C-alpha cells in the first residue's frame, strides 16, 4: 500500500478548517489554534473506526469545556443549555465528519464505523500507532484530532 494514500497532518488541518468554518466558527474569528497542548486529564474523546482496506481510528479529543462549547456552537444554543447528551452527540458527529472525510482519502474498500464517545478518559487503542495529530487549543481549551493505524497491519512487510 503506497504511503501516498496515508493522510497527513496537513490533510487533517484542511478537514478541521472545513469543520470549523461550517459549524464551530462560521464567522472566522475563533479558529483552532495549533500548538503544544497538555493532554486533558478528564475530557471527552470521540472516535470512529476504519476497517477494510485500511485499519485504524480517527479520534477527536478535547476537554469537557471545549465539548460544551462545540455543542453550543453546533446546536446554536447557550453553553448553559447544553446537556451531557448534546455533548456526546456533537462530539460523535465531529468524529463522524472528520473520520468520513479521512476515509474518502483512503482506498475505496474502507468503511467507517458509528462513533464511540468516552467521557472522563481518553480513548485508548492498544496495538495501534499514531500516524498524525493535529493538536492545539480552541477557545483556550485543549483540542486534538488524531489518526491511529493498527500496528499489526502497519508492520506487514510488502509482498
Amino acid at each position: 500500500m503506497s504511503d501516498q494514500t496515508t493522510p497527513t497532518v496537513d490533510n487533517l488541518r484542511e478537514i478541521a478548517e472545513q469543520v470549523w468554518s461550517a459549524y464551530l466558527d462560521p464567522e472566522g474569528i475563533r479558529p483552532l489554534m495549533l500548538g503544544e497542548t497538555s493532554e486533558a486529564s478528564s475530557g471527552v474523546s470521540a472516535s470512529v473506526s476504519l476497517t477494510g482496506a485500511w485499519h485504524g481510528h480517527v479520534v477527536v479529543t478535547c476537554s469537557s469545556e471545549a465539548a460544551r462549547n462545540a455543542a453550543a456552537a453546533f446546536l446554536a444554543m447557550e453553553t448553559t443549555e447544553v446537556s451531557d447528551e448534546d455533548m456526546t452527540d456533537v462530539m460523535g458527529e465531529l468524529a463522524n465528519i472528520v473520520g468520513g472525510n479521512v476515509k474518502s482519502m483512503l482506498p475505496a474498500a474502507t468503511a467507517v464505523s458509528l462513533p464511540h464517545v468516552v467521557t472522563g478518559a481518553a480513548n485508548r487503542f492498544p496495538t495501534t500507532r499514531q500516524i498524525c495529530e493535529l493538536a492545539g487549543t480552541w477557545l483556550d481549551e485543549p483540542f486534538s484530532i488524531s489518526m491511529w493505524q493498527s500496528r499489526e497491519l502497519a508492520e506487514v512487510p510488502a509482498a
Partner: protein
Amino acid sequence: MRLILRRIVGQLGFEVADAEDGRAALDLLAGMENVPDLALVDWNMPNMNGLEFVTAAREDARLREMTLVMVTTESEQSHIVRALAAGAHEYVIKPFTSEAMIEKLALLGLVPTGANT
C-alpha cells in the same frame, strides 16, 4: 445532526419529523396521513442504510413524490453516483454551512420565496 437539520429547515417553515434509521423511517412514513415533501437522509445507519431507504422510497408509489436529499460524509464520486442512480434528487456533503443547505433546497424549489435565510 438531526438537531442541526431540524433547526435549519425549521427556520424555513418546515414541520419536522425524524427517525433513527431507514427502517424506522419507513415505519413512521407508513403511519403518516400526509407524505412529507422532503426527506433528508444520512447514508450510514443501522438496520437500513440511506441508499436502501432511497431505493425503497422510490419504489413505493405513495412515497414517490417525496424529494430525497442525502446528507452525509460519504463523498466519493461512486457513492454520489449510486445515490443519484437510486433516485436521490440532491446530495449534501458534510461539513456544510446552513446557507449551503438552504441553497440546495432552493435549487429544488423547496424554499418558499421570502423565507428567512
